[in-house]
């Protein structure tokens, strides 16, 4: 393979964001006709790297070469023109348009006076569909296709140019086994046409089945490339996580109390099934798994945003039914949501009003809200959580991510909840504030709160949790105590590998 010109070569790519070095000198090479896996934990820099490659982000340093020609990708369209195309995890298709219109969206063939040249459009589309060997035709409405076929449309879209490199981002996330076979066949075809394929996935099985080489990123740095045929799951896992953890578990010792929350065989449609666990007072239980494993959905069910299809929820031993967030809040369940700006905060409101929002109806004097009572609560939790803001009148939208998150946490603490659920506590928060939030979570447990932490970052889960529940595809795979958990076993559990298979 080495005697050929690489299809794509990255050299020393550096991308920094304020406070974060997301990519730190990443270099790797994709040969034509090879399937190259890109692996790494969440936050290792894969998606940033792909954004750089796709022309969405400009690198601070480094160079991209296409067939050894130095290239600058100025936009996704530009990247596509140069033969680098993406198949995104999330489909971006117009449901109401036909397959052909979707494939040629923005570049429909035209006749005079700007009329669409339908004949050419359908001919070209059918030609592409034929190479993909799919069972639908160009005039089909995209919204009527299955998810797998919609993905084929995405792939067909990539083939309107002569691609040099095609990047698949978690392509099998929503596919059945039969559909995967079809996808792998398409990838094989691309391969035989001399296209370089970058395949991003967490699923070891697939990686070992279809890829030729595996490159690993960790903490924004390139950690090496392995030949798939000469390695094994253990070695790859080792490479992905093999850092010495600088985040040792926080030294807060305390005793756990009685069971605050018990969930028995809770299911919600196809989102998660037969989930059981308990959380004690003074304990942090971490939920770890891939995106889409059902963690957030469990939190939303506990908080009354979803109705469970079966199973029960018990608070302090008493069975409760929760139909709305208002119910949950009354029962003492609070949720710090994953999407802080979209679901946690009223961005246009000031800090104080955001913090007192759930209890403002209890802070009245006569018909009016009592300013004094509100400010008192704000001041108390600003000091307690060390929220840095010029004053309560500051609009929340102008605060940093860490301080915003503290406002959300303060909002719930001031309600004295029984159970605090924190979903992705440090998403989009800089490194310094991260450890502050982690310490805060440990402290809250020490004060006797029952805390659930949902996170996609392994160091975070390991750092804050007393127990860890590993989830895969809507099911609890395994439960670990902080003493017995290892990074290996955790990563295998969330990849769907049963404990008995672990060596």
């Amino acid at each position, binding site marked *: 393979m080495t005697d050929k010109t690489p299809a794509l070569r990255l050299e020393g790519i550096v991308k920094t964001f304020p406070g974060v070095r997301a990519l730190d000198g990443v270099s790797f090479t994709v040969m034509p006709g090879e399937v190259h896996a890109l692996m790494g934990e969440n936050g290792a820099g894969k998606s940033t790297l792909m954004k750089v490659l796709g022309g969405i982000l400009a690198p601070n340093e480094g160079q991209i070469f296409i067939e050894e020609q130095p290239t600058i990708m100025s936009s996704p369209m530009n990247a596509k023109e140069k033969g680098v195309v993406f198949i995104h995890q999330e489909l971006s298709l117009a449901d109401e348009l036909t397959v052909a219109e979707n494939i040629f969206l923005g570049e429909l063939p035209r006749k005079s006076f700007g009329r669409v040249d339908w004949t050419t459009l359908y001919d070209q589309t059918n030609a592409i569909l034929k190479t993909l060997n799919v069972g639908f035709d160009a005039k089909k409405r995209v919204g009527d296709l299955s998810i797998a076929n919609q993905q084929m449309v995405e792939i067909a879209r990539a083939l309107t140019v002569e691609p040099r490199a095609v990047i698949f981002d978690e392509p099998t996330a929503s596919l059945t086994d039969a559909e995967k076979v079809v996808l792998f066949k398409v990838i094989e075809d691309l391969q035989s046409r001399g296209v370089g394929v970058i395949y991003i996935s967490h699923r070891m099985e697939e990686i070992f089945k279809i890829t030729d080489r595996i490159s690993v990123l960790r903490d924004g740095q390139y950690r090496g490339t392995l030949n798939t045929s000469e390695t094994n799951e253990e070695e790859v896992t080792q490479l992905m996580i093999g850092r010495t953890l600088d985040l040792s578990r926080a030294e807060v010792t305390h005793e756990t109390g009685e069971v605050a929350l018990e969930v028995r065989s809770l299911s919600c449609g196809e989102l998660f099934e037969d989930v059981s666990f308990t959380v004690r007072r003074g304990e942090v239980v971490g939920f770890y798994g891939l995106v889409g494993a059902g963690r957030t959905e469990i939190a939303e069910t506990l*908080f009354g*945003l979803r109705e469970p299809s079966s199973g029960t929820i018990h608070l302090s031993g008493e069975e409760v039914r929760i139909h*709305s*967030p*208002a119910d*949950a*809040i*009354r029962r003492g369940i609070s*949720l710090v*949501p994953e999407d802080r700006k*979209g*679901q*946690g*905060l*009223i*961005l*246009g*409101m000031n800090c104080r*009003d955001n913090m007192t*929002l*759930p209890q*403002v*109806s209890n802070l*009245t004097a006569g*018909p*009016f*809200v009592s300013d004094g009572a509100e400010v008192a609560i704000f001041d108390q939790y600003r000091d307690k959580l060390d929220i840095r803001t*010029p004053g309560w009148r*500051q*609009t929340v939208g*102008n605060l940093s991510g860490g301080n915003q998150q503290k406002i959300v946490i303060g*909002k719930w603490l001031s309600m004295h909840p029984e159970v605090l659920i924190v979903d992705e506590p440090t998403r989009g928060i800089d490194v310094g504030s991260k450890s502050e939030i982690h310490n805060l979570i440990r402290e809250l447990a020490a004060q006797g709160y029952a805390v659930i932490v949902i996170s996609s970052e392994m160091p975070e889960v390991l750092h804050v949790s007393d127990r860890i529940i590993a989830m895969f595809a809507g099911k609890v795979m395994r439960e670990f105590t902080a003493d017995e958990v290892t990074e290996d076993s955790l990563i295998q559990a969330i990849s769907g590998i049963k404990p008995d298979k672990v060596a």
Partner: protein
Amino acid sequence: MKNETRVNLIKQGAIWAFIVVELIFFSVAGEFLSVSDKAFMNFDNMLLLLKQSAPIGIIALGMTIVMINGNIDLSVGATFALAAIVLLDSMTWPFMEALGNWAIPLAWFFALTTGVVLGAINGLIVWKTGVDAFIVTLGSMLGFRGLVFMYNGEQPTSHLNWTLVDFAEAQFLGLHTATWFLLGAALLLWLLMTKTVHGRNAYAIGNNRDAAVNAGIRVGPHFLWNFMLIGFLAALSAVVFYSESGSVNPNDGMLYELWAITAVVLGGTKLSGGYGSIVSTLGGVIAIQLLRKGLGHIGADTETVNLVIGLILIAVLFLDRQLNRKGKEELRT
């Protein structure tokens, strides 16, 4: 941070600055162009202006609240007309006539109740079906107007009660009855929106509905209350106006919803919800009335007035976008 406070101040004060500019412009231009020889900035003229602002103004106050809440109400013009008919017609009912002047408060009560009921219909539909308020009230706008025509066909409904007319034309401390109602409603609604739980929650829902639900706020009842409130205010506006005029045509109140929305938007309330203020709406109402009166003063006809108001509305919103960095980014795409 200081910068931000300043920007907010500029934005809040902008409508009042605009009013001052209008006053100066029309005073100066009036010197050269005026069709009458009276000065524009005449005290009586200004008092009259406030009185004339009242019908649209009272509705616009309600519209502000509904829009802050993230909804809109297009049916207010029809509600206005129906409430007016109930007011005037109910006073001709035999048992009402027997009551003498006691019929007046009762007729007011009937008219205001009509407004509240119509508002509740809108609110319940928006709450229970989840259909967008724009669509729901577009439908009820047509429906309520249909009721207006069913009541009395194409005929005007008339009834003059001189006690009522005297009350409506009275001046207390120089201000007309209608002006007092406008200012009184503004004060109460300002308190409602800035000092009460309902007001706080209405802002929160309009700004970020998901986050409001996550804070345990029940969205539906707030919608219902606000629609009832705007229905009440549309009826109040009708009651104040028709107490004096004594005759309502079935087409009265048409386009009032759009004038109200114009005033609200001119005052800086956002169509998308979550931002806005009662005081600024009052400014928007006065600014529009000034523009109409001022342009009339310098000899422009109604068509020209509408053209100018339309242009100014678009210009103001464009400036607002330019002030807003986020808006600027959207312009580029």
